[in-house]
């Protein structure tokens, strides 16, 4: 987008403004198909769920602050730790990364004006919201899932869990999976087809590589989870026998299916963090990432190898050691892409001239914690060691360093980093730094002692523990750390909320960022760019001649595409201009369809199968209407 707009350029801008004006008010938000608005909706929804999951975490730590705690009843504790896991993974990290960051930034970074399927994009948000509320209705009713987010059968079978707690889980995750599948299909097509002309694969920002990897991983991992949940519900509702060993089923079938999804999931959670890190580090180090192709490769390869390691969650179920070796081999080699990234980041910071502002601090914290989590990860890839610490607090420590330390820190850093772009105002740097140190120290104090307490033999998922086993002090420290961490997180939110209204104006590129989104105004206009940007490198903002070319083309009114919601589509590999797409404007169908789908699952849950079929039929008709009133291009 042009940096300085001349009068001739201005008239083109005004035309775009007219074409892309959005509906005002609530209706505007309900029927929007603008990727930035949808991103913001995702952001607030998943932030709310993060709050809920955080409260659950604090309840857990309060319960365990001392031996024989009785803040929660055993039953309540089981529901709380289950919902904590489900919330943080399915309702916070994934929607926050793919939903909020991906939706808002991806089209901007590739120089597009929207996602490939804007209405599908809206639909996946509303379906995600439906599934989240679906699961939380369960908690409010006191029927929340209660056999862990891993939900092992037979504990989760009708015989041992007769209530509808598990049905909320089974249906809820299928429901949630629909939303994620739609999102990732949208992402992949967007990245394949909507890159600005000239942005061939080797000129694509690393952020996009990370999200491409995430999208593919989710696309191939989710069916396994959906099938596992389908089997579970068939067993529970219709008396099938997939998991019933008495009738030729196998409880380990669930574990296999679940972890075929569950391990790629771990990388799905961490990869967006890599993407955010790879866009923050160059900006603050004032240099390009060291060894660009290798970093891009590492992001893709992690997602791929992640499918070959799932049984390392099952090293104690008694498979043959031969089976385990196949997985141990992959589990060890998969650390190499991560090592490549870590040292590429470090080398970039080392050889650049880094400025340690708040986002950068979070990234450094992320690197430190990712190394800790990664190293403990290697130790549990060693089968004999894993068989000792498996299902102990050592594992809890390991994956919290990976998931909280390594996945959430970049999210927090990214919030600070892109806050000026989204709101047009700066956050408070001093408060930002304080909030970083609070979260950093809090995280360490909360999760590091868990390694020790785990090696001392404390199993996971215990609602309490007896005194005199040497666990009490460590648990006390962990709980204190958790409160510290909570304070830090609240401070971050406070900082952003206050800055939203009081912050200094940010301008276009307050972070000296290197990707396209920094070339447009903050916040960006509905059409993102007045001219479809020129791209000749993965760091477009560091190619001044291209930005000047944009100015010139705006004056000539070239590549403005002012008639209708238009964006160019390009070829998949080399991004040569292929056609001009007309994007659908606002639409009421997505929220409506999402409502119908919610109806289907609600009715399934209440065993009104015929009504559910009715809702299904209505969904079909809604889809017809959707396509009848589809835009014509």
């Amino acid at each position: 987008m042009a940096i300085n707009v001349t009068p001739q350029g201005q008239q083109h801008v005004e035309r775009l403004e007219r074409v892309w004006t959005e509906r005002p008010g609530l209706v505007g938000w309900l029927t929007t198909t603008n990727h930035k608005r949808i991103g913001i909706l995702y952001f607030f929804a998943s932030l709310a769920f993060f709050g809920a999951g955080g409260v659950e975490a604090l309840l857990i730590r309060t319960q365990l602050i001392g031996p024989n705690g009785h803040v929660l009843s055993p039953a309540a504790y089981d529901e709380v730790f289950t919902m904590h896991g489900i919330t943080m993974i399915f309702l916070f990290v994934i929607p926050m990364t793919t939903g909020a960051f991906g939706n808002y930034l991806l089209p901007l970074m590739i120089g597009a004006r929207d996602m490939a399927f804007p209405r599908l994009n809206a639909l996946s948000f509303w379906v995600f919201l439906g599934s989240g509320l679906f699961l939380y209705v369960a908690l409010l009713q006191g029927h929340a899932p209660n056999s862990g987010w891993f939900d092992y059968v037979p504990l989760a079978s009708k015989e041992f869990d007769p209530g509808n707690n598990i049905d909320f889980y089974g249906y809820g995750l299928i429901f949630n999976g629909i939303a994620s599948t739609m999102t990732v299909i949208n992402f992949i097509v967007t990245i394949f087809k909507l890159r600005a002309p000239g942005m061939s694969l080797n000129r694509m920002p690393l952020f996009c590589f990370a999200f491409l990897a995430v999208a593919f991983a989710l696309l191939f991992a989710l069916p396994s989870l959906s099938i596992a949940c389908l089997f579970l519900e068939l067993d529970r509702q219709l008396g099938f026998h997939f998991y019933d060993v008495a009738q030729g089923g196998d409880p380990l079938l669930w574990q296999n299916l679940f972890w075929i999804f569950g391990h790629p999931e771990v990388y799905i959670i961490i990869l967006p963090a890599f993407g955010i890190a790879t866009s923050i580090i160059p900006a603050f180090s004032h240099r390009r990432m060291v060894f660009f192709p290798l970093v891009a490769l590492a992001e893709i390869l992690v997602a791929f190898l992640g499918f070959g390691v799932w049984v390392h969650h099952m090293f104690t179920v008694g498979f043959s050691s031969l089976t385990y070796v196949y997985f141990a081999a992959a589990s060890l080699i998969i650390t190499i892409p991560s090592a490549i990234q870590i040292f590429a980041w470090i080398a970039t910071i080392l050889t650049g001239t880094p400025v340690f502002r708040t986002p950068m601090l979070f990234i450094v914290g992320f690197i430190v914690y990712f190394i800790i989590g990664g190293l403990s990860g290697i130790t549990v890839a060693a089968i004999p060691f894993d068989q000792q610490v498996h299902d102990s607090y050592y594992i809890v420590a390991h994956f919290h360093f990976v998931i909280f330390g390594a996945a959430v820190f970049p999210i927090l850093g990214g919030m600070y980093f892109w806050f000026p772009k989204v709101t047009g105002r700066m956050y408070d740097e001093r408060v930002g730094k304080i909030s970083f140190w609070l979260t950093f120290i809090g995280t360490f104090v909360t999760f590091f002692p868990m390694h020790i307490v785990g090696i001392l033999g404390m199993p996971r998922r215990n609602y309490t523990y007896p005194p005199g086993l040497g666990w009490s002090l460590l648990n006390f420290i962990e709980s204190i750390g958790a409160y510290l961490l909570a304070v830090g997180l609240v401070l971050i939110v406070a900082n952003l909320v206050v800055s939203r209204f009081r912050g200094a104006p940010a301008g276009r590129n307050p972070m000296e960022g290197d990707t396209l989104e920094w070339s447009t105004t903050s916040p960006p206009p509905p059409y993102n760019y007045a001219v479809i940007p020129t791209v000749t490198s993965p760091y477009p903002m560091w190619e001044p001649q291209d930005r000047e070319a944009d100015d010139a083309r705006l004056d000539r009114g070239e590549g403005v595409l002012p008639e209708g919601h238009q964006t160019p589509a390009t070829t998949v590999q080399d991004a040569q201009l292929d056609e001009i797409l007309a994007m659908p404007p606002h639409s009421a169908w997505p929220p409506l369809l999402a409502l119908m789908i919610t109806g289907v699952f609600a009715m399934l849950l209440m065993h009104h199968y015929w009504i559910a079929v009715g809702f299904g039929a209505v969904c079909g008709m809604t889809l017809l209407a959707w396509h009848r009133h589809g835009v014509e291009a």
Partner: protein
Amino acid sequence: MSPPPSDRMVWFAVLGGAVAWTIQFVINLGFTFAQCDQPIQRWALPVHGWEIGLSVVAAAVTVAAAAASLRIFLRTYRLDHVAEVEREGRGEAPPLGRINFLAMIGLTVNFLTLMIVVLTAIGAPLLPVCQQA
């Protein structure tokens, strides 16, 4: 570079090893499950024999893919140091830059998948077939 390598060749160079390992992995897994996870032995499979055979094939394919990517890499590298431009993330113009970029990716991917294939091949025959771990 005359003529540029066909897309089919480039993508084999990138994905060959990955696909080979996937197939080796799935078949190996099928064998141990079939052989070990049943109360009564319905069939006796030559698991170790199959493993070695598979590993050899997988390794061969991976090496072939690696060789392909090396060849493509060198052919593109000779031309005004595209590789350097790519390594530094300056984005040489496609298709040349993109092909060189993919070739570098292919080299690494095939190297790492070859490692997994080899580790599996070394580790597996040393262990009894159905010994519960």
